[in-house]
């Protein structure tokens, strides 16, 4: 019987494709956006989106107790947020 807590290949493949796409967008962001503040915020929003994919799809924390999922999602939001505040200060 297939474990219903396990991610399926489709979700993992979609996650992989999204992660690769976002990584490519991130590296070319400075070439398309002149404003450094916008580049920083854009790159760090991409970090949050990528982090959510890794936490929920690859680490399978979308099926974990809420506290653990929130801990990891907080990390991938808080760290980029602090970095953004430092850069834009």
């Amino acid at each position, binding site marked *: 019987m297939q474990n219903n807590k396990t991610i399926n290949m489709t979700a993992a493949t979609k996650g992989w494709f999204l992660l690769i796409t976002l990584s490519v967008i991130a*590296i070319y962001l400075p070439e398309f956006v002149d404003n450094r503040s916008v580049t920083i915020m854009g790159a760090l929003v991409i970090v949050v989106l990528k982090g959510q994919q890794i936490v929920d799809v*690859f680490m399978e924390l979308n099926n974990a*107790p809420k506290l653990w999922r929130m801990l990891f999602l907080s990390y991938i939001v808080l760290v980029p947020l602090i970095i953004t505040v430092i850069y834009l200060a």
Partner: protein
Amino acid sequence: MSNLSITVEVPDKKLPGDLAMWFFILAELTVFAIFFIGFSVSEQLNTEMFSLGKAQLHQTAGLINTIALITSSFFVAIALTKIHKAQAKQAVLLLLTAKAFAIIYISVKIWEYLSLFEQGITIETNTFFTLYFLITAFHLMHVLLGMVILSFIAYSAWQGKYQNNDVSGFEAGTSYWHMVDLLWIILFPLIYVI
């Protein structure tokens, strides 16, 4: 009026792998958070130096490494689905594929270091390169440790140790590998992009 009842099966919430591994991962993430914040503060104090330093890095190498680590993590995630389906041999092959991508990451990183050394750039060149070498080498050490862990769970899977849905050891190993990926997706834009 007749009563209609619907039974919905709600899966119980379970943390994959061992609790100890998750605490270890949290500790590792905290250490790296300090590095990332320290790097950002130093950049704000030495804007020009960091801008010049980043210009000397090879962005394409950074992108190749990002793709290598994400792809490696993808194969590790698929390996976990196979072990859940009791397909241990396929899981081992997927872990070996994941390790091949990790070797690409390591090769590119070593090439990057050697290229910088050839330009006379070392850990003592300036604050930017001190932090660059410290953070990336520390991350590289985690990649190496992750590869040892992947080898261990691949060997255990080959020996048939993950049976009857007792896969917590395998899950713990894969979770550690995804942490390495998670750290890189913050490290990459911080050092190479912004």
